[in-house]
Structure formats: structure tokens, C-alpha cells
């Protein structure tokens, strides 16, 4: 039988560690509710959920790629590309066709990324950095540096529909995101197909030996990343009734930070879509609170960096500690504490004597 100490296998600390992101979320919510002016009301909370919707959607695919142990730097430009395609083609073919086309363009970018990563075997950091650059040029080429806006009544009615409140906190666009988050969370946690992403990220050769087509799984992850980034982008653009040339530029760093804070490891095999979603909500709550406090972006940027830094530092420190104690034998520790007790009792005895 095994005699090793069960490391961090139970106890409050481990629970806290595992549910870190939910705690951050709850604490952020409580603090802002208590202190931020006009924070806790339906209007403001709806604003938060609306703002979070695009990045939350983008984060789904990004998280899946990261679970596979890769990185997709192209999501920001895919968001823009999808917006540009979706809105730019609307006047020719209508949303019924232009939106699917926009989604396809995202998926196509993902496919190219995935194939370059798996077939040509270039690091995903480099591949997606390259596609990011290419897409920047391509978007300029398409738009001529101009944004695309639709001011026809039907476009406005779509925009108004996507932005109107169905029930408190939920607009149709938020609903789409929510459904996607829950769907992918479920697929990832409860289907074999979903678990395979984790296996591929955890150890590619284990996956391969276990009969999982690792390369195909990675390509699928990149396609999903492109597809979901496009989804987030095109619906956002539709609600704004405009696709600007740089609407996705801020998303990359945001989604990346949120995913890490949510507990998805860059080394792969760990994390979850729902966690990233909660992380985005938590960040959004904090940012919203900062605005309500009347503080500037400098605070927001500093805080964003600070939270990310603390999380990264904590994780690094945790694994540093883990390395130090892994393999400790419980019976030796027991012996030590027994000896300690023994010493204390003898000390006590001698002092009494």
C-alpha cells in the first residue's frame, strides 16, 4: 500500500486554491456592492453583463486552445475581421448569409493556425503572431482604413434587439454568450470529446497512445477559437451597428489575463470555460466599480496588471512549494511530530521535577 502523504489533497487551503476564481468573483461583487456608488442595480449589472458578453464569448475558444497547451494571439484580429465581414457584406447578402460567412472567416483563420501548428510544427505563439499581423493588413485592405457602419432601419432593429433587456441582466447577446459558455463548459467536462482536449494538453503522447487524434483535436481547438472569437465579434458589431478597424485590439490581453486568472494553465491540461467566464465577470465588476468610483484608466490598468501579477506569482510560488514537498513520507512526519510531542512532554516533566 502507499505510504506517502497525500499532498494538499484536502483541507481548506486546497479548496480555496481550487475555487480561487469564484472567491475573487464573490469578493469583487461584495466589495463593489458595499462601496461603489450605484453599483448594485439592474441597470448597472446589465451593463456589466453586456460589456462582458463579447470577451466572454471569445474567452471560450481561447480557453480551449490554452487547455490544449497552445496560445492564440490572433483572436483580437479575428474579432475585427468577423465584424468587418459580417457588416460589410450585409448590404449585399443580408445578415442571414453575412453572419455565417463572418463565422466561417473566423473558423478559417483558426483552421490555418491549427494546421500550421500541427503540420508544419511551428510554435503556436509564432504562428498566431504571424496570422495576427497578416489579418491586420488584410482588414486594412478590406476596409481601406474606414470603419463600416450600417444605419438602415433593419440594421438598427437588429442592433436594438440584441441590446434590449430580456430579463434582468440578460440581453439576447448576453444570452448567446451564456448559452455558448454553458454548452462548452458542459461539452468540455462531460463528454469524451471535451475531455480529450485536456488529455492533449496534459500530455500529447499519452493522448496519442490512448488513441486520441491529438493533432486533430488541436486543429479543432484552434477552429473553435476562431469561430467563437468571430461569434463574439460579429454580434458585438451588430449591436453597435458598426465594425471598427480596431474593435478587437484590446481583447487579446484582456482575455488572456482573464483566462489565466480563471485558473487555466498556460502549460495546458487544466482549467475550464466557466472559470474564464467567471474571471471575465469578476474583472468586469472591478472595472465597472472603478468607473463608478470615478477613478481613471490608470487605476484600471494598474489593477489589471496587479491582479494578474499576484495570480501568476501565487501559482509560481505554489508549484515551487509543491516541488519541495512532493514525495514526503507521512510516517516520517508522523514520527517527527510524535518525537516533538515526546520532547515537549519530557520537557514538561523535567520542569515540573
Amino acid at each position, binding site marked *: *500500500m*502507499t*505510504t*506517502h*502523504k*497525500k*499532498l*494538499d*489533497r484536502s483541507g481548506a487551503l486546497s479548496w480555496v486554491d481550487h475555487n480561487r476564481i469564484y472567491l475573487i468573483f464573490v469578493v469583487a461583487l461584495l466589495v463593489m456592492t458595499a462601496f461603489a456608488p450605484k453599483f448594485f442595480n439592474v441597470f448597472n449589472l446589465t451593463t456589466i453583463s453586456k460589456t462582458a458578453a463579447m470577451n466572454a464569448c471569445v474567452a471560450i475558444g481561447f480557453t480551449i486552445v490554452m487547455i490544449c497547451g497552445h496560445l492564440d494571439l490572433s483572436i483580437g484580429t479575428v474579432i475585427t475581421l468577423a465584424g468587418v465581414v459580417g457588416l460589410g457584406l450585409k448590404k449585399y447578402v443580408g445578415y442571414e448569409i453575412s453572419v455565417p460567412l463572418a463565422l466561417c472567416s473566423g473558423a478559417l483563420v483558426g483552421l490555418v493556425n491549427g494546421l500550421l501548428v500541427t503540420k508544419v510544427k511551428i510554435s503556436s505563439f509564432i504562428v498566431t503572431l504571424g496570422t495576427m499581423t497578416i489579418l491586420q493588413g488584410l482588414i486594412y485592405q478590406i476596409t481601406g482604413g474606414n470603419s463600416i457602419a450600417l444605419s438602415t432601419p433593419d440594421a438598427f432593429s437588429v442592433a436594438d434587439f440584441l441590446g434590449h433587456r430580456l430579463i434582468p441582466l440578460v440581453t439576447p447577446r448576453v444570452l448567446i454568450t451564456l448559452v455558448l459558455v454553458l454548452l462548452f463548459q458542459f461539452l468540455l467536462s*462531460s*463528454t*469524451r470529446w471535451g*475531455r*480529450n482536449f*485536456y*488529455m492533449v*494538453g*496534459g*500530455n500529447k*503522447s*499519452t*493522448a*496519442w*497512445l*490512448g*488513441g*486520441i487524434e491529438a493533432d486533430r483535436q488541436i486543429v479543432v481547438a484552434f477552429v473553435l477559437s476562431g469561430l467563437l472569437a468571430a461569434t463574439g465579434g460579429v454580434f458585438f458589431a451588430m449591436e453597435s451597428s458598426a465594425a471598427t478597424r480596431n474593435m478587437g485590439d484590446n481583447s487579446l490581453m484582456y482575455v488572456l489575463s482573464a483566462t489565466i486568472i480563471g485558473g487555466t*494553465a498556460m*502549460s*495546458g*491540461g*487544466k482549467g475550464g470555460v466557466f472559470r474564464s467566464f467567471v474571471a471575465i465577470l469578476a474583472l468586469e465588476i472591478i472595472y465597472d466599480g472603478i468607473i463608478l468610483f470615478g477613478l481613471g484608466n490608470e487605476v484600471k490598468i494598474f489593477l489589471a496588471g496587479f491582479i494578474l501579477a499576484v495570480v501568476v506569482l501565487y501559482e509560481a510560488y505554489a508549484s515551487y512549494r*509543491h516541488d*519541495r*514537498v*512532493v*514525495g*514526503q*513520507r*507521512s*510516517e*516520517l*512526519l508522523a*514520527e*517527527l511530530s510524535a518525537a516533538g510531542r515526546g520532547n515537549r512532554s519530557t520537557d514538561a516533566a523535567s520542569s515540573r521535577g
Partner: protein
Amino acid sequence: MSHVGKKFPGTIAVDDVSFEVYAGEVHALVGENGAGKSTLMKMLAGSFDDYTGRILINGKEVALHSPTVAKKYGIGMIYQELSLAKPISIAENLLVGRLPKKGPFLDRKRIDSETRSWLSRVGLDLDPNLPIEDISPHEAQLVEIAKVLANKPCILVMDEPTSALSREEVDRLFEIIGQLKNQGLAIVYISHHLPEIFAIADRITVMRDGKKVATKDKAEMTREEVVQMMVGHSEREFYHGQPRASGGERLRVEALTRKGFFHDVCFAARAGEILGICGLAGAGRTELARVLVGLDRKDSGKVFLDGREASPRNMAAALRLGIAYLSEDRKSEGLALRLSIKENVLAGLIPMHSKAGVYLPEAGSAVLESLMRELSIYPRDPSRTVGNLSGGNQQKVLLAKWMACGPKVLILDEPTRGVDIGAKMIIHAQIERLANEGHTIILISSDLPELVGLSDRVMIMRKGHFIREMAKEDCTEESVLIAANTDVARPAQEVAHG
């Protein structure tokens, strides 16, 4: 189930080998490193899609071009290197690729119960949801075995399954193998460890240089014959066992403790002595070595080198003091596989070959040349990438690195694990030579003939304590083994006094 045969004309790793294994037998596959055993078996497991020749299962030809296909035909393989995904749970590792489903979704309950039952089969009682990174290496090895068993293979290939296991666990494994055999499985067992082979094999196939030498029933063979077939000469004749004239005390360890790993370890080693440390897996041997060279921090106790206290803060400091450590994991901890022989051998000498920060690798040319000659590192070209060398030569490069440093105390942790016998003999000769030259060698080894054959004294470690010291005269493989397996409730000091 019968008859697996294949031909590989022209391939270097495995050359035109025919091999068969019958249902209900344990077929041992032995040979030096690089003999092609592992490659042969990986073909069977579907790791290559470009093999030549034919593979037949149950008399039908099959094309095993991927692990999925191999698995479908009931081939299960336990790999030498762990093939588990560290951040993933035990359950998912165990049931990889075939997680039970209820409709389109996973059946959590069945995953849990199935995992638990397979774990208990190999004697583990762990929470199936724990990630592999939270369990210890030998637990992981057992999970690996459970994983393959869970696939209910009809052909089971085991490549060095016992290297990380303790005695009890090995016994348990053999018990399982016996059961499987009775259930009609065909088992291929690859090992360097001849006693194990003779304990469980029905037939033995010996390979050399990618070719098959012979296949015989166990009864028709003796250990010596097997060794001879593997290398062409007997293993026994190697250990000279000449007593050495050792010098004064060089290293003294007093009540050294690292909490939870080893407690109150005391010993002393003289110059020119080979001190063997014996113990089962997890006895704390490697951990002790790591503390001595400053890789880990001690919690209490003292270490003296030549009478002066020596507690290096890191490996560099240890090297300056003259303590070197050859780690057991040559691939990740020992060698920079992407660099050349020269860069590896001279790696430890960078500070010494530098003047005012300028590194002069030419300063090491002579040392390099002579070491490569003495250790017969092949190929003799120092610009070769180490990753392309055979295991034996890699190990020689690793030893050369430490010999180049000329440490006062050299700690060798499993210096010949996974090394072919030719290289092993060279390494042993060099170890003895180093001792004769006055270096203190601390030899940590699970290879009992090696340990007993080389050591002047053997210290027995068990569960984090030093329990016994045995002089050369008292050491036999059996006595050491018995000592290492005996539970002693008393602390180490009393043993030392007794």
C-alpha cells in the same frame, strides 16, 4: 491467439526479426540497450506507421499503424517512460480514449467505480480525481500498469515495469502477471533484470544489434547463457572485488534530516572508498544525495568534508567544495540532449575554464580527449549531439562530465540504469579506478550485483532511516536484500551502536 511475426529488412533499429508469443505465456525479451527490444514492441503497439514486414494476430495479418488500431486488436503496452498526463486526473489517465459514456455524455459514476476497481487491482487506494502530479512517482508507475490492464488487452507488453517499484509492489505485480497468464493473455516482458526474468518468464528471446539471437524455454537456459548471448561473455567475471587501501575520513554526516524524506542520517566515508547505499524505492536515498549537493535544503544535522563543515547552498557551491552528483535521470537532469558531447562533458568546468569571465573551451580539450578515450565514448567525435547517442554512451558522457571535474566526493545515483552491459562494464571499471585514485564514491544503486560487487561497505536505508551498515565480507545480494526489506522500528543511531 498466436503468432506475431514481422520482418524489417534494412532497418537499423530492428532488422528482420520474427517473434512470436502465445496465449497464456510470459515471454521475456532481453538484450542490451539499443538491441531493438523497445523498438520492436513499439511497432506492435502501433507507434510507427512505416514499419516493414508483417504482423499477424490470431493468424490474420493486421496493419498496426496507430495506437488506436493496436488497441483495437487488444495490444496493451506499459512504457518505460511514464506515459501519463500530469495535470490530468488518475481516472482520466487510466481510462484515456475510452471514458465510459451514458448516451453521449460521460458516466461519472462508472468512471469512478471502474477506476477504483482497477486501482485496487494494483494495490492502490487513491482518489481517482487526483491529478497525477499530486501522487508520487511509484504510485504513478502503478497507475500506468493499471491503465494498461484496464484496457483488457489480450497481448500485454511490459517494458521495464518494475524500475520504480518497491519489492512489495514488484511481488504484487508478478502476482497479477500470473493471474493474467492464467486468463490466457500473451505477455511480453522486457527487462534488464535477469532475476526477475527467471522468476516469471516461460520463454526467453534474446536480441542483439537489432537481430534476434535465440528464443528458448526458460528451462533450457541459465542466467549465464542469457548474458553470454546478450554480450558474448559472462556478467560475473567482471566484479573483481579487490580490497582497496582507503585513506582517512573525507566525509562525515551527522544526524542529517530533511523533514518527511529522511531523518537522523549518520555516516562517514573515507577517501578512496566506495560506499554503497542500498534501499528500496522511496527509502530516501536520492533525497539524501540531493541535500548533500545543495539541491535541497536540510532541516537539521551537519555535514563535514575533510573536517570542515560543508553545507552547500546550491550545486555550484557543492562543486566548488568538491562534491558532485550524478543523477539517476540522465535524460532530463543529467544531459543537455541538444548539445554536443564536448559541451556536455565540459559543462561542469565552465567556471574553471573561464578567465575573467571569458570562457575558453579549448582548455578542456585534453581532458575531453582522454576521457572519451578512457570511457570509450563512441562515436569519438566530440561535436556529436548527445541526444543521438545510445543510452550507454549517453551515460558515459554523463560520468565523463563528473570525472572531468575531479570531485573529492562523487555521488553516483543509479549510474548504470538502463545501460547495456558493455557500457556498464566500462563504467564500473572507471568507478573502481576513481576510488583507487583516492576519490570517495557514494554509490546508490538498485542493481544489487553492482552494489555488492563494487562497494567496500554498504549502508542500508529504509523508509528514511539508515538502519544498518554492512562490511564487504558480509555483503551478498541476498543479505543486502533481506536487510533492506526488514522493518526496523528503532532509530538509526541504535543500529549504528549495535
